[in-house]
């Protein structure tokens, strides 16, 4: 079973078209293995993206270098998954 320890979900708010294009460039970087839950669309619309632990530093540096605002929406995805799993087991019982 694949685990998601250390994966974070970031909420990003692009301010203009240029920042949206920057995010689209980021999305095209396959090696980062990022997973857009809500893709970049128009300025001021929130973007949600899951980032593996190994790519976190690269992505955050990229965002900061481009002046793109972000916050951590989910700090550790695996913690949520474990809680959900626990709840499912309880329901099954």
């Amino acid at each position, binding site marked *: 079973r694949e685990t998601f320890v250390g994966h974070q979900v970031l909420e990003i708010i692009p301010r203009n078209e240029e920042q949206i294009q920057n995010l689209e460039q980021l999305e095209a970087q*396959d090696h980062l293995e990022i997973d857009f839950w809500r893709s970049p669309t128009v300025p001021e619309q929130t973007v949600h993206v899951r980032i593996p632990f190994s790519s976190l530093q690269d992505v955050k540096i990229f965002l900061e270098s481009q002046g793109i605002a972000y916050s951590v929406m989910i700090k550790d995805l695996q913690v949520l998954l474990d809680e959900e799993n626990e709840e499912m087991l309880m329901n099954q019982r």
Partner: protein
Amino acid sequence: QERSSGFNFGAYHSLDEIFQEMDQLAAAYPTLVSKLQIGSSFENRPMNVLKFSTGGNKPAIWLDAGIHSREWVTQATALWTANKIASDYGKDPSITSLLDTMDIFLLPVTNPDGYVFSQTKNRMWRKTRSKIPGSLCFGVDPNRNWDAGFGGPGASNNPCSDSYHGPSANSEVEVQSIVEFIKSHGNIKAFITLHSYSQLLMYPYGYKCTKLDDFDELNILANSAAQALTSLYGTNYKVGPICSIIYQASGGSIDWSYDYGIKYSFAFELRDTGLHGFLLPANQIIPTAEETWLGLKTIMEHVRDHPY
């Protein structure tokens, strides 16, 4: 078979449990509900559809759920909806009149391989599980695989991407099975697909950003449906064409259905603000299903009252 009174619609369930409950519904309402298999998934799991019919060859409404497997609240909502349709027939005048006029086909788990994979191997899986020749990666995004602007903007040609469109339109047997069923039925009047994330109610197009011929009617209807949905718990929905309220995305199911001639083609993105990702807490399943039902009902009533 034992009646399903003990089934908990407010919990997430395995594929086997969902299939069992579908059998239970068919057994509990034998004159209204039947189960049919419209095909098999890549890993040979059945594509099971519930047919709600009072008999005769009526025009029909198609509903499918959970094409992106990890959105579990979608499949759970579909199952609650199935029970609601069955149990309200003969009690709710609107549903009774609907089913006296039309049939409903409901596919609660559109991507069964992905659903099982997301429960056993990778909780974030959203694609099918087909093997891609020449690639180490598996799976195709089944909502980029329809024959509607296939391979255009908003879909990836990289087999390792989460939005990979696949080698050709309808390459995924799950998509092909639905297409064949819709074509062979020949009288589907509405095509509604249920997804989850971001609270949206959308209509075509996604593969292009032009205004569709029925824009005014679909826009008014979608807004009424969203209003009905919001009236229950205040969940905020955005309404519009895929291209303008999300982004240009090619190969989507409702674009195909609309171009095929099914005027009432809609996609719901159910309740999930993102805070929990695709892990919407189970205590939100029933509220999500209840509010979605009001939106669905608004659309289905309109379809019933506006034959074409």
